[in-house]
């Protein structure tokens, strides 16, 4: 019971922090920044599910983030242009007409549905194609990265309909609310905070469900799961598509909050950058990815303002340090430390610990069990 109590206690504390303390303590500017970080944290929740629990290292979440962001941006641009109007950048780069596939996004309902369906569907399609053929591990990672690269190149190349390198920006209103009004900016923050909390709760439910157990089983021993009569590909596709959906929602909120979405937010580097926070926070934990993502974005904003080149070194060092030496993230620092103190050879029995979403096995065993180096191809003869 204490576990459940702690969980709901944690949720209550998070809700108070997000809905009462932060809006009260932070200036409008800082609150908007926090809202941006929360959007990035949504992507991180998805990555935590796909990578931490499912063992799928996805290097292309920027694609789904970008799809969500661009779909939203298209609607905002069209809405700003008014009924029948043409977005400003199209007059600048294009021939001044709105392409046919843009037209449906004049409608807010179509846009919201598309944001929820298109990226999720794309991920499900790609996941089916890849996982059914048992392409996994490094191969999946490389493919997902190539997808991000192709997507960014496509966006840059099709300047007439995507705004090119500049991306889409200069939005005036959000579903009828003017974005210049600080009050509406606050409203966006509250939406982001609410959505993030809902996502964390949904992830928690998913993790604790039968499906969640299956997902971890597929991560650790895919073949054994297959021999037991399950279809590992299906299990993986669900996690991958969920992660894509979360990323898309994050992107869709990111666009009005930040005021711009550009290829730089979705490309290869941006996609991998999503992983830093997840790795630092603890990929397989529930809250690790969220806290990690917010902390890293916050550090990036404050450090890169003052020392731009230092931030890149720092980011690189974080990757190296955390992944190489603390693979389960800071969330498990306590466990590692306790184990050290207990002395070599003594393994703590953690089964009695409250289940707070962290894997219940020993830290080493909870790593996504990558195939040993010689079996890496992950391919059956």
């Amino acid at each position, binding site marked *: 019971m204490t576990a459940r109590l702690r969980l709901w206690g944690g949720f209550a504390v998070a809700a108070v922090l997000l809905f009462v303390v932060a809006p009260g303590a932070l200036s409008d500017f800082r609150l908007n920044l926090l809202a941006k970080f929360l959007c990035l944290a949504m992507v991180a929740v998805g990555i935590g599910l796909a990578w931490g629990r499912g063992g799928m290292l996805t290097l292309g979440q920027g694609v789904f983030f970008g799809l969500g962001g661009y779909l939203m941006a298209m609607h905002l641009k069209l809405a700003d242009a008014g009924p029948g109007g043409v977005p400003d950048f199209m007059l600048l780069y294009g021939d001044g007409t709105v392409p046919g596939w843009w037209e449906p996004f004049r409608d807010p309902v179509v846009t919201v549905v598309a944001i929820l369906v298109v990226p999720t569907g794309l991920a499900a399609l790609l996941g089916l194609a890849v996982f059914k053929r048992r392409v996994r591990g490094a191969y999946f990672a490389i493919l997902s990265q190539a997808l991000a*690269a192709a997507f960014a190149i496509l966006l840059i190349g099709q300047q007439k309909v995507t705004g090119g390198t500049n991306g889409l920006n200069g939005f005036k209103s959000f579903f009828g609310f003017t974005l210049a009004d600080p009050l509406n900016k606050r409203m966006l923050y509250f939406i982001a905070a609410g959505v993030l909390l809902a996502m964390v709760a949904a992830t928690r439910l998913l993790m604790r469900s039968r499906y969640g157990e299956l997902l971890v089983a597929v991560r650790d021993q895919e073949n054994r799961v297959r021999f037991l009569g399950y279809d590992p590909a299906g299990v993986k596709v669900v996690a991958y598509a969920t992660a894509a959906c979360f990323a898309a929602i994050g992107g869709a909120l990111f666009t009005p909050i930040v005021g711009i979405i550009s290829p730089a937010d979705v490309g290869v580097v941006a996609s991998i950058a999503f992983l830093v926070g997840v790795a630092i926070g603890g990929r397989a934990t529930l809250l690790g990815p969220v806290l990690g993502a917010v902390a890293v974005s916050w550090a990036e904003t404050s450090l890169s303002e003052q020392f731009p080149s230092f931030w890149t070194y720092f*980011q690189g060092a974080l990757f190296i340090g955390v992944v190489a030496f603390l693979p389960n993230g800071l969330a498990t620092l306590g466990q590692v430390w306790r184990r050290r103190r207990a002395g070599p050879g003594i393994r703590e029995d953690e089964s009695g610990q409250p289940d707070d979403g962290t894997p219940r096995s020993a830290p080493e065993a909870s790593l996504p069990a990558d195939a040993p180096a010689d079996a890496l191809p992950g391919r059956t003869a």
Partner: protein
Amino acid sequence: MDALVSQLFAGLSLGSVLLLAALGLALTFGQMGVINMAHGEFMMAGAYTAYVVQGIVADAGVSLLVSLVVGFLVGGLLGLLLEVTLISRMYRRPLDTLLVTFGVALVLQQAARDVFGAPNVDVRAPAWLSGAVQVLGVGVPKTRLFILALAAVCLAALALVLKLTPLGRRIRATVQNRDLAETSGISTRATDRLTFFVGSGVAGVAGVALTLLGSIGPTLGTNYIVDAFLVVVVGGIGQLKGAAIAALALGLLQASFEYSTTASIAKVLVFVVIVAFLQVRPQGLVSVRSRSLA
């Protein structure tokens, strides 16, 4: 006819660049299952090596040849350093190596930016590589032909080393069966280090070659790394032959898609083709037959 030939050369030329970038990866990825995201930055280091060497050796022709050798050493030593300090600790966690080496790539990129400045720099091509040669009625830049030849030479040299030398035998043995190789008295650790040195060295050579194609900047490597990895995935693991075929095929495919559409759509189409191809042959073009379930 002319258009066809010129497309063919565009594709071959792109393929040879991809091959140079992917050869080293085929070795390190194939051998150890190590995904080295810093491979592109080793290319970048090779390219800047050419820039530095040119500052010391005035004659462009001599400096190019010197750079090829020095570039190999610079890339190789960087790779060796990476292997000894980081990668050797994480052989059982290939996906984590990917992230760690990405961190290394970030650091190297920023280091290049701090040392050489963010703007691109140029390396002069030697006089005997300027101009074009008429091949089948189409003018082909000599630099492109040089890179094509260089890729062929590197491929042949690596293939010979793998096939004929004791080092090559050890490498192949380790790839095929690490445990058996070890019990047969091969020091797999030493083999790993040497493989990584050679593979990263080839990246350095590739970087030097890239200076002939345009100006170079700190992000030179990122432009090629994704495509290079795709080449290895399509080619199949641990086989140079597969990488060679895949590089040329992807180069030709990209060039022909670019010809019929635009460069950005071509990229997407190539990606779709690769995913479709993996439906048919998930193990890549050339693969070692194995009964392992992995």
